[in-house]
């Protein structure tokens, strides 16, 4: 009876050990790969995991001309992780930067080793097409509303395919406050009708 029980236990124990081994093995492999891949372009997973094929992303807004890919310049520059105000390059961004500027700077969102990708707080690299995940790290409530279509704009079909905009289509990531607009003309006043 006792022997039989031990025999029965052996199988699950073996499986468990195997799984643990597999887990560590894979992890090592992954972290090894990570370094090699770092300079390659990070591809987006699925644009929005929550919704099926009913939703399609519109193009992210264009970069400032001549600025992307960043690695064209940055691959020759030794990264400097010291927090500082940029003066010689990207000074147009420094001039407008207003996004918790007391506490944050470039490398809180841009990856130090691969400037062509963004970087989550977890260290995970992110393509620019998926920037909403980066925004969602702090603005979780907005991300939640955006995913269900309450924050931001959707166009297309109320009962079918919808197009949605990324956060950065409306909010400049370096100065996210929505900019004031010039209003369209007011209606004619009654006294001005001839």
């Amino acid at each position: 009876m006792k022997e039989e029980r031990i025999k029965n236990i052996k199988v699950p124990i073996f499986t468990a050990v195997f799984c643990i081994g597999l887990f560590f093995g894979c992890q090592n492999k992954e972290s090894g790969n990570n370094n090699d891949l770092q300079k390659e372009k990070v591809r987006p997973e699925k644009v929005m995991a929550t919704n099926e094929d009913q939703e399609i992303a519109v193009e992210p807004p264009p970069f400032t001309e001549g600025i992307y890919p960043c690695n064209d310049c940055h691959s020759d520059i030794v990264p400097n992780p010291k927090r500082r105000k940029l003066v010689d390059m990207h000074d147009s961004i420094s001039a407008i930067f207003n996004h918790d500027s007391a506490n944050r700077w470039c490398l809180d969102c841009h990856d130090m080793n691969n400037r062509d990708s963004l970087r989550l707080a977890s260290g995970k690299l992110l393509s620019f097409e998926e920037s909403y995940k980066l925004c969602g790290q702090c603005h979780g409530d907005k991300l939640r509303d955006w995913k269900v279509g309450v924050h931001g704009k959707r166009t297309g079909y109320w009962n079918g395919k919808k197009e949605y905009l990324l956060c950065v289509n409306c909010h400049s990531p370096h100065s996210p406050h929505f900019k004031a607009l010039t209003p369209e003309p007011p209606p004619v006043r009654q006294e001005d009708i001839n």
Partner: protein
Amino acid sequence: MEKNKSRRSFLKNISLATFSALSLAGCNMKEIDEFLQRNFKIMSKKEKDEIVRNLELKYKEKYNKEFHVSDAPAMDGVSFGYALDLSRCIGCRRCVYACVEENNQSREPQIQWIQVLQMEKERGVDFAHSDVHYNPEKVPEEGHFYVPVQCQQCENPPCVKVCPAKATWKEPDGIVVVDYNWCIGCRYCMAACPYGARHFNWGKPEIPEKEINTEMHYLGNRPRMKGVVEKCTFCIQRTREGRYPACVEICPVGARKFGNILDPESEIRYILENKRVLVLKQELNTQPKFYYFFGV
């Protein structure tokens, strides 16, 4: 001679005279047909098809373009709802002009289905102190918020109750529509509407030939005549095809939300279930299907 001056002979003569005058004036048969056509609500499929076809020809003649006039009925299991985020609207009036263009509203005299009211934050929603003519350099203005008002598509519409001609009614998908051919222009509905959402064609509506929207619906954006009432139809020509209304798609801040209230997965249902919503003049029991909410 004396004997002939009875009421009967008078009526007989006058009707004969009218008939001959009509035929002499060469009044074309289509116009007579249009004058005598039945209410859209009780028309048969055949009648509708014919009327829609005639309208397409008529507009083509007038504007030198191909037109498509739809008579699409309400979809099954659909009841439209609209939500507007007061915390987002900046009062830029993009919606007003997108609506004018989409729905072929008269440019001169000016008719606009959407009115954006500027209100003071200190007073809250207070129509008596609102301003529709605000015109600063940039919006939003400090200390103000904006409440766009258009037809609230009431579940219990007072405008429908007062119409003596049954020219306006609520469709199964909740859109309150007008059959412009049946409207007699008495404007009772305008007096009954507590939201100022109905507009009267005091003059002959003018739409520039190159700006006219050729995708039309009989109950929606087809050109109106002088002397009839018109109003927002949730862009019936778009929404019955599954598309969003024009005001939703133009809004630069994404304040406008639209969908099927009966669909639990829709944005509009999410808002009704998860946000604080309000309707205008709730105490009147009009039960609007146009909700205002605070997204933040």
